């Protein structure tokens, strides 16, 4: 690319920042920009020279995204920025730092604590937490003190901590870094071969027969089942299975509704700043003239059939659709916060005996569907929306959910790697993401049962709260909408709700009710066998 031999590069957000290729003529941004500053950085990749304007085309992929794009352009014009707030220093990163310092010159714990807390992200770090991190680095920091003899850092007679062996320093150097890649799987052409002639191929041996086409994220790949098709490297492939660290797939024909792989790098939530602008634009029909005609028409229909979301409040619609009863809300707080909200709402609806079956969300809203009539329950005052969206959902319900969610395991994995509990690389061994020496999920389960207050669980929770779960954003939203919830009961799906309902089935909601899923799968097969 730098030599100018490629005509175009397709990328995720990886190339947003820090790339300085002079002769990019045009940036084509497919989908929504997600943030004003982000959009500016992206556009800035084109004609990255002082004396020429940058050019870009924004291609919204749905009506909501068209509004978001317009809001982002306005923000860019006003040079309004939405860079995220500085974050609080993470404990897993601190653990790596402490080990790193010990691998250099020996240190006194008081001096290191003073130095660390002199930095802005760690200014609020308590001595208790610091000591817990130090203890973790030295021997794992467990209440059951069985690893003293294997200590990685030791306090000498001079009161200074130092690495206990040269091997510790070597391992630190091999594992230094705080970017944890999502575990990746290679995609290779291959097929299922029948175990014996005449045996069904479906239960045969996976064989690699062709070349590697690229990589998929493990989380995404594991959602597929044999026979699913997906678009990859310009071809349509059929998923055959996973063999060690490779997805084995065969070439197939078009016309089978293939899945589109997604990557973490493409999953930034809508910024709070831009969300507020989108809400303002939606509720102000005088601003619609700037929008594409079909988008303005869509909003007119919404106004006619239901209500428009208000800048500060929350619009909730209920309607029946396809044998299910839907509740759709429009918080505009981004996909991650909505995912957390969805988990908590379904728990509460479950308790209200409305038998929720699932939920779907995008950056703008969330749809929950249930067997029971949610709209009727609200009308008959069996269900109060004020209670349903009450701030106390971030109390017990959150704790109960966190205890079992797969998202916490993802967060824990990253913390365990950064803090040095699990090594990515070991002298003489090269481990891929899939072949880490031990499953962090198993470690998480054991640690949570036996030492729930451990510093690494606290680190994983802190990380999840700001990252994967966006608890703070959710909390701010819940307090904003108090007394401002409007409910509209409808006969059928509203214009705004359509784009959220389209999300159903696009991405599985991870992690809940696994046993239930097993039982259902078993029952479904049994039914097939008996019929």
């Amino acid at each position: 690319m730098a030599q100018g031999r490629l005509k175009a590069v397709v990328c995720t957000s990886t190339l947003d920042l820090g790339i300085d290729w002079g002769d990019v003529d045009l940036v084509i941004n497919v989908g929504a920009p997600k943030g004003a500053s982000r959009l500016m950085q992206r556009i800035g990749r084109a004609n990255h020279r002082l004396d020429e304007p940058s050019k870009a085309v924004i291609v919204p992929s749905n009506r909501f995204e068209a509004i978001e794009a317009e809001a982002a352009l306005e923000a860019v014009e006003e040079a309004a920025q939405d860079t995220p707030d500085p974050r609080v220093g993470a404990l897993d990163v601190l653990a790596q730092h402490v080990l790193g310092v010990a691998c250099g010159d020996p240190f006194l714990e008081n001096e290191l604590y003073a130095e660390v807390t002199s930095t802005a992200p760690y200014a609020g770090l308590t001595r208790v937490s610091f000591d817990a991190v130090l203890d973790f680095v030295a021997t794992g920091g467990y209440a059951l003190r069985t690893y003293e003899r294997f200590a990685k850092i030791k306090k000498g007679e001079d009161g200074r901590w130092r690495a206990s062996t040269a091997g510790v320093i070597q391992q630190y150097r091999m594992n230094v870094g705080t970017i944890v890649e999502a575990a990746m799987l290679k995609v290779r052409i291959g097929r299922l071969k029948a175990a014996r002639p005449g045996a069904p191929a479906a239960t045969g041996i996976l064989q690699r027969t062709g070349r590697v086409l690229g990589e998929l994220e493990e989380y995404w790949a594991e959602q597929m089942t044999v026979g699913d098709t997906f678009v990859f490297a310009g071809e349509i492939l059929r998923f055959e299975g996973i063999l060690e660290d490779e997805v084995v797939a065969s070439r197939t024909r078009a016309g089978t509704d293939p899945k589109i792989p997604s990557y973490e790098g493409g999953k930034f939530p809508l910024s709070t700043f831009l969300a507020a602008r989108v809400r303002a634009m939606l509720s102000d029909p005088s601003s619609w003239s700037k929008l594409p005609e079909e988008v303005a028409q869509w909003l007119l229909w919404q106004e006619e059939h239901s209500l428009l979301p208000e800048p500060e409040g929350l619009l909730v619609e209920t309607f029946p659709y396809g044998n299910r009863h839907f509740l759709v809300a429009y918080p505009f707080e981004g996909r991650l916060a909505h995912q957390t909200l969805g988990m908590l709402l379904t728990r509460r609806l479950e308790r209200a005996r409305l038998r929720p079956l699932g939920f779907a969300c995008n950056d703008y809203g969330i749809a929950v569907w249930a067997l029971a009539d949610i709209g009727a329950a609200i009308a008959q005052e069996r269900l109060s929306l004020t209670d349903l969206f009450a701030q106390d959902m971030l109390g017990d319900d959150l704790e109960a959910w966190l205890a079992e969610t797969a998202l916490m395991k993802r967060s824990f994995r990253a913390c365990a790697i950064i803090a040095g509990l699990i090594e990515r690389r070991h002298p003489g061994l090269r481990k891929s993401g899939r072949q880490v020496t031990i499953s962090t999920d198993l470690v998480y389960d054991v640690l949570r049962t036996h030492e729930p207050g451990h510093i690494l669980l606290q680190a994983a929770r802190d990380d999840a709260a700001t990252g994967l779960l966006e608890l703070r954003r959710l909390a701010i939203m819940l307090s904003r909408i108090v007394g401002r919830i409007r409910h509209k009961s409808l006969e059928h799906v509203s214009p705004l709700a359509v784009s959220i309902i389209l999300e159903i089935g696009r991405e599985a909601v991870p992690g809940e009710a696994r046993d239930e899923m097993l039982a259902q799968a078993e029952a479904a097969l049994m039914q097939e066998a008996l019929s």
Partner: protein
Amino acid sequence: MTLLMRNEPLVRRSCEISVGADIFVADASGALWHEAERTLVVADLHLEKGSSFARRGMFLPPYDTPATLASLAMTIARFAPRRVVSLGDGFHDSEGAGRLSFDCRGALRNLQLGRDWVWVAGNHDPYAPAGLPGDHALSCHIGGAVARHEPRRGVLGAEGEIAGHLHPVANIAARAGGVRRRCFATDRRRCVLPAYGAYAGGLDLRDKAFVQLFDISRLQAVVIGSSRVHVFEPAAFGAARAKQRARPRAR
């Protein structure tokens, strides 16, 4: 007894499987039970795996051994076996028994009291664990079946085989995505047990190690849920469409 009566709910803590001429019970704890000989079989306990990693500077929570032993204690209390067979890799390494904490050593010896105990040799722990009671053997018989750590490839004789080593897990395709769980793998001649240890990972049933070992047309996975077992045919854990399989071609 059939595996499932028509009106029976799909909730069961264990299910019967036959291996050779013997009937065993695959339990949701991951243990295998032989009623006639009152023998309980557990594979791949991998005790002291945490401390094994700690020696190399990876301080895994030192609770894997207590967790595994606590689970084993509950299973033993339920079945009250006359004999317990640890089917190899009872300890993660040969020095593992020496690293047992005082409490864990006591807990393990308590479990061994009043019953026979067989430590079958595994690849991680080829020698008898130091300072612990129990017989040490390369294999043993349970009813008419032979029990050894690593399953033997190739056609079995008349006797069935009970083995561990492979840590089978099944990925079940459910409506909302895959569910990955430990399982028993059996084709009525041979049964490979799930790994019992808290830190023991797993190998997918689709791996060729299983395909080469089993008569695929008779393979069943007894999948372990949080407190019950679920029985699946190959179509569920590795096959495309249920209708394609299990129809032998006419010759």
